[in-house]
């Protein structure tokens, strides 16, 4: 057991997969000598050399497309997009190509690749270094969308992603890169892509969240438990696609009340899907409105510090929303 940060977990996962399987390589902007702008690939260039840790041209669609081609040719690419905000140029390759390749070739050409991108706000990144983009990809069948909130999950899920025969989008909550620490075992392990994870058991209501918001939600649950005696169940939706409908419903059937927290814009954010599933298949268990706490519908997280803070959900705001719903 070691206590490490989330970014260390990400790096370890890649390091071990590179060591385990020669077909694994990394490409992206500044992943080489520079070790990535967040230092996720730090030391890997020195260890595995320029053939396997490949600085790409400044061009996201080709980073992904090279990955697709290499994956179809039997390699196991890990493509880094420097910020999730810069994934848009690659959307055609991700949504129309990677996602549809296996299906469109009737299973002949799987695309075993991983696309990593740091996402989320609260780091003074303004409109273009703070985006949450998971909702867009969670709409595209053929993709897997994964977001860890702990070092344990980050390492285990990323290893699963690299070994998965499908294209996996792996979004990392960058505000938590160094802020989130946790224990991980010393041995090789994986965490399966698919099931959500109940990170805290409770009875009064369920909060669904992922990434930084899952981390905050645990803090909020602590607060309301201590201060208000509200028993919160926390579901960490660490796989967004394919959707774990059963996992999502299980907790709701118990509590009958749901709050969904995400830092993305409210409208058409991932919480909409969770709400829709509950309102359909969980109707008979509903004990109150299904609430969403999310970023406001403005084009991004503003740079100016107080406005940024007002944009972002926080443990305090989550606690307030929990109290409100519990009182319903």
């Amino acid at each position, binding site marked *: 057991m070691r206590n490490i940060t989330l970014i260390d977990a990400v790096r370890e996962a890649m390091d071990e997969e590179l060591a385990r399987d*020669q*077909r694994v*390589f990394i490409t992206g902007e500044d992943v080489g000598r520079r070790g990535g702008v967040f230092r996720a690939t730090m030391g890997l260039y020195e260890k595995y050399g320029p*053939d396997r840790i490949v600085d*790409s*041209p400044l*061009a996201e*669609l*080709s980073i992904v*497309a*090279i*990955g*697709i*081609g*290499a*994956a*179809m*040719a*039997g*390699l196991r*690419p890990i493509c880094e997009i420097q910020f999730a905000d810069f994934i848009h*140029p690659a959307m*055609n*390759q991700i949504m*129309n*190509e990677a996602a*549809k*390749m*296996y*299906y*469109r*070739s*009737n*299973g*002949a*050409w*799987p695309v*075993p690749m991983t696309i990593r991108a740091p996402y989320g706000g609260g780091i003074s990144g303004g409109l273009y270094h703070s985006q949450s983009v998971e909702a867009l990809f969670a709409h595209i*069948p*053929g993709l*897997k969308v994964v977001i860890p909130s702990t070092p344990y999950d980050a390492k285990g899920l990323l290893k699963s992603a690299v*070994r*998965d*025969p*499908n294209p996996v989008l792996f979004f990392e909550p960058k505000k938590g890169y160094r802020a989130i620490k946790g224990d991980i075992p010393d041995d090789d392990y994986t965490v399966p*892509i698919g099931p959500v994870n109940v990170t805290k058991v409770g009875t009064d209501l369920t909060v669904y969240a992922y990434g930084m918001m899952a981390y905050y939600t645990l803090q909020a649950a602590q607060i309301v438990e201590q201060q208000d005696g509200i028993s919160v169940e926390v579901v960490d939706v660490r796989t967004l696609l*394919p959707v774990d409908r059963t996992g999502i419903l299980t907790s709701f059937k118990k509590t009958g009340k749901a709050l969904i927290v995400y830092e993305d814009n409210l409208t058409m954010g991932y919480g909409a899907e969770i709400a829709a599933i509950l309102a359909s298949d969980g109707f008979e268990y509903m004990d109150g409105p299904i609430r969403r706490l999310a970023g406001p519908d403005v084009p991004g997280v503003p740079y100016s510090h107080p406005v940024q803070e007002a944009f972002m959900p926080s443990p305090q705001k989550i606690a307030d929303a929990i109290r409100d719903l519990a009182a319903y």
Partner: protein
Amino acid sequence: MSDKALDMTTYREEMDERPSDKLSPQTLLEMFWYMLLSRRLDERSWILHRQGRIPFHISGMGHEACQVATAFAINRGIDYVHPYYRDLAMCLAIGITPRDFMLSLFGKAGEISSGARQMPSHFSSRKHNILSMSSPVATQVPQAAGLAFAIKYRLKMGLQDPNDTAQPRLAITSLGEGSTSQGEWHEGMNWAGVHKLPFICLVENNIYAISVPVDQQMAVRNVADRAAAYGVEGVIVDGNDVLASYDAMAYAVQRAYSGEGPTLVEAKTYRPVPHSSDDDDRSYRTREEVEQWKRKDPIQRFQAVLQERGILTQEQLDEYESRARQMVDEAQKFAEDAPYPEIEPNLDPNSVYAPVEVD
């Protein structure tokens, strides 16, 4: 790396020997056969559409020479090919059958490229290393660079023997001249150049992108003029001349195999028919222009060469024609009689993902 696109006409004069000179009569006939077969299959497809028996056809007509030349210049069925929708003749020469094609026209079960999920002419065949294509143009170009990257990677890692002809040693992709306007093309070419990949980009320049003429598409005379911007060798060739096309492609293949880097081959050609069965080309080009180009028909030209050289007899030609008709007839009947795909498995969300192996 050259500054300017090389015109194969000039280029050939400098060559001691044309690669096509080394092709045996047998091979030349085989090439002719695929061009003819493609044409007859293509013609039948138009008829089927006009009869209302299929919803869509997009044609490779007029492009047969550069396509078949390409198939014969590479290690057919082994080298990676990431083609586009016009490449019927190329794909037939590599191993797709008229049956496969007919199944795709009718959207029937057993269709090879996609299980009839995709529209016709969206070629794919794993066993021939033909990659699966989509409809958004030019997306295959950076993917093909990725295939070529993987080849180079395997060589460097010692995972592949450079002389092992049972392994792909290059990746070739093709597209129309209009599609080079896409950012995808730029980025794919750029990777190929930066990493000096065993990569070939065949541009089948037929002067139009649906209705848009090439001078509204780009401000240069030749697509090959764009190759220099990527440190890629650019070659221009008469795409209606199968032997010249073969020479150009053999040159590009040689470069790829020997690690000299990527080549762009621009085959100047024409599409004598509308863009697709949904198109009507009378709004954007004159009948005279079309007629003029029909006179440069690649099949007739090759036929004349073969007959002149005494390689193709009338007898042999008749035999080819009747064999082609028979194959097309048979393929059509097979497809018409074939069942539709089962619905359930095609709409099952689980079918969308490759199964995860538990280790």
